[in-house]
Structures are given as structure tokens and as C-alpha cells.
């Protein structure tokens, strides 16, 4: 358990991102505060990944500002992200975690204990010495989660963490996300799986064509969406 960190709230002030003449995000105003997981939903290409990269600080807005605890350009010391397709370092599972711990400046004396804890948390302790790139898709995703948590983050961003996983692997990942959230780490995740949004979300933000269509507490959003786009998306229609 931790005290709320200076990373939060993360605020978007009129943020627009354009690339090659295409507007990817359009005038986003948003506050990500501590609390249960925030889930971004929306069709492919709606801007979910770009929004996560902005919030992580990997991408600078074309217009507008992103602030962390009221400050701009805060280095990502207490933020971590799991990408949609995490790159596994060409090392063992344990060495991937050791690398992240070293990058985060964690004292060497704590590495062995932290690696054991993290592997235990994601259920990979039996595979510590296995080459990370030889792990299955689900195992790699769990290792990527452990590697992100090695930074001891206050905020964890997840980009479609269960895309292309089977139900068993999906459940394992979702259980970890729940545990993480219970440890008071703010989870912000993108998904286009409505079932997953229903299982994990405290708050839902729906994006469509680079704009926020609707936000709200998960229960009210899912049961009584206010906008036509959200109703269409929830009804399983193809939003184009």
C-alpha cells in the first residue's frame, strides 16, 4: 500500500495529436485520478494507444498540455507501461526483471528478493531461468506486467493486455491487474473487449475517431450509455 503519489492526477488540457496531416487525438480534456481502474474503450484506431503513450510521457502533444500532479515533463520514474506487443529482452525471465530493477535504480541488494516477489505475483517462479522469448504469449504478457511493476509504479498503463490471449491466460492477467489495483496502483488500460471492461473497470472512457465520446462510472456507462455512439458500440454494432 502506498500514499497517493505526486504523479496523479494526470490531466490532459486540450490535447491534440496530429501525425502526417492526420488527427489522431482531437482536443482531449481528461483527468485520470487515483481510484479503481480506468478503462479506455473504442474501436481500433480510435486513439486509445496514443492516449496511453501521452499519459506515459512517451509522446508529446502537437497542441495542448499533459500534466502529472500539476507539473509538465515529469520523467516516468513512477509510471510504467505494458505495450500491446511487449518486447522481451533476449535474456531469461529473471534477467528481464533484473534489467528493469537496475534501470529503475533499485539497489542491487534488493534485486533477488524483488525478482522472487514479482515472479511469484505473476505466477512465473517456476520459469525464472527460461529464456523470455521462449515463453508462451500469456507467460510473456505476465512477465511484461512483472517487469513494469519492477519500477514500483504509482500508475500502470496497459495497452490491450489480453488481446490474442485464450480465456485461461486472460483470466491470469486480469487477476494480476486486480491485485495490482488493490495495492493502490492506479491502472489505466485500453481494451476493445467489453466483457473485460465490465470485469475490471471502475471508470470508463470511450474514444471514437480521436475524441472522447462519453465517460462515466463503469456500471452506469455499461447499463445506461448516454450517447448514440456508446449505445451502438455496446450493442455490438460496427462503429466506423
Amino acid at each position, binding site marked *: 500500500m502506498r500514499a497517493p503519489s505526486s504523479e496523479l492526477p494526470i490531466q490532459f488540457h486540450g490535447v491534440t495529436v496530429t501525425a502526417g496531416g492526420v488527427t489522431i487525438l482531437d482536443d482531449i480534456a481528461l483527468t485520470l485520478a487515483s481510484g479503481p481502474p480506468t478503462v479506455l474503450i473504442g474501436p481500433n484506431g480510435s486513439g486509445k494507444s496514443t492516449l496511453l503513450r501521452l499519459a*506515459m510521457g*512517451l509522446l508529446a502533444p502537437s497542441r495542448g498540455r499533459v500534466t502529472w500532479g500539476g507539473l509538465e515533463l515529469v520523467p516516468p520514474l513512477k509510471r510504467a507501461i505494458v505495450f500491446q506487443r511487449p518486447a522481451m529482452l533476449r535474456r531469461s525471465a529473471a*534477467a528481464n526483471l533484473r534489467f528493469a530493477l537496475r534501470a529503475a535504480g533499485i539497489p542491487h541488494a534488493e534485486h533477488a528478493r524483488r525478482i522472487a516477489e514479482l515472479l511469484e505475483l505473476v505466477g512465473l517462479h517456476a520459469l525464472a531461468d527460461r529464456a523470455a522469448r521462449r515463453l508462451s504469449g500469456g507467460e510473456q504478457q505476465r512477465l511484461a506486467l512483472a517487469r513494469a511493476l519492477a519500477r514500483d509504479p504509482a500508475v500502470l498503463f496497459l495497452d490491450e493486455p489480453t488481446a490474442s490471449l485464450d480465456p485461461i491466460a486472460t483470466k491470469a492477467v486480469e487477476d494480476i491487474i486486480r491485485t495490482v489495483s488493490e495495492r493502490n496502483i492506479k491502472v489505466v488500460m485500453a481494451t476493445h473487449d467489453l466483457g473485460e471492461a465490465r470485469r475490471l473497470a471502475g471508470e470508463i472512457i470511450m474514444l471514437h475517431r480521436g475524441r472522447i465520446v462519453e465517460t462515466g462510472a463503469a456500471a452506469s456507462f455499461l447499463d445506461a450509455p448516454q450517447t448514440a455512439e456508446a449505445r451502438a458500440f455496446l450493442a455490438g454494432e460496427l462503429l466506423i
Partner: protein
Amino acid sequence: MPDGPSALQLVLSGDPALFAIVRLSLYVSLSAVALAALIGIPLGAWIALTRFPGRQGVIVLLNALMGLPPVVVGLAVYLALSRSGPLGAFGLLFTPSAMIVAQTVLVTPIIAALTRQTIEDLWIEYRDELTAMNLGPLGRVMALIWDARFSLVTALLAGFGRAAAEVGAIIIVGGNIEGFTRTMTTAIALETSKGDLPLAVGLGLVLISIVIVVNALAWSMRRAGERLAG
């Protein structure tokens, strides 16, 4: 054909003169590859990770330099090391050191160009992760070189193959002096022109065997390493 021992007999008898030639060849080529690695790997990694004006031109040039003609390198190093050249004061011409210098010049572009390609490909894969981990430039380079180590071994092998096989550069700057700067390739060139074909063939067999053994060792190292590290 002159009378004398056959190629096989020469090799099997462990002739001390032959042994000295083999030893010098390995000393020169391995030293050159080590020096070229010290220059070429950091240089290739730096070009891979840095954006600067004229970068495309540098990459094209580096790739072109992989095909440097050894005799031209030999001539350039000869001019630099000769008495009246800029490095003449060191008195290196016609010594093994001059041969190492020439082969280093020859091999460095090969290692640098292959390193650049390898590191750049890996960087595309790792960029997001390493940036998200807030890793500094030095940390990135170290991580990339370490994770590319098995591919970089191949770059070193390419360099070694080039150095071990070339004759044009070292015959110019070394002079093929018996017992001092005579290597396998310069000896083969000399013995062939003299007509002592058994010795030339013997040396050729030894040279090919060494290249095969070095490659086999590196290959099994790579296989074992990849099994452990993925």
C-alpha cells in the same frame, strides 16, 4: 614439380617454420579483429542510434567500405607508415604491427556496418520499452550490444574471414620477410610463384582448416548462448 615433402607431410610433421607462419597469421588477424571490434562496434552502435545530417551518406559509405580493395588499403597504410609519411616516425613499416594496422583498416568498416544494421534493427524492437524504462543513452547502448551479442559474433567472424584471407594489404606493408612478416597468405602467394606447390597447398589447407574451426567454435557458442538467452 620439385622433389620434396608433400603438402600433407609438411602439415603433419609440425614443421617449426610452418608453425611460426601459422602463429603469425593468427596473431595479426586476431589482433586486427580485436582492434576493429573496439572501434567498429561502438561506431556502428553510435550511427545506429544517432540522427545527424548526412547520416544516410555515412551509412552508404560505410557499406561501400566493406568492399575496400586490400591492395589499396595496403598502399594507403604504406604511404602513412613510410619514412616520409605522417606516421613514419614510429618505424612500423615491414613489421607485424604495420600488418595489424592495415588489416584493422580493412576490417573496421565490416564490423561497423554489420553492427549498425544489427543494432538498428534491435533498437526498432526495443525503443518503446527502453524509453519507458527511462534508460539513458549509455544504458541503451549497453543493453542493445549485450542483447545483440550473438549477431555481433557473426560480424566479428565476417571480419576475421576477411582478415585471414587477404594478402594484398599485408604483403605491401609487411613485405613478406621470412621468419618475421611472412604469413600463410603471403607465403602461399610466394611459394606458388616460386613453383613450390606442395608448401603452398599445405598452407592453403591449414588456412582453410583454421577458418572452419574458428567458425565452428563461434557457431556452437552462438547456438549454446541462444538456447540459454533466447
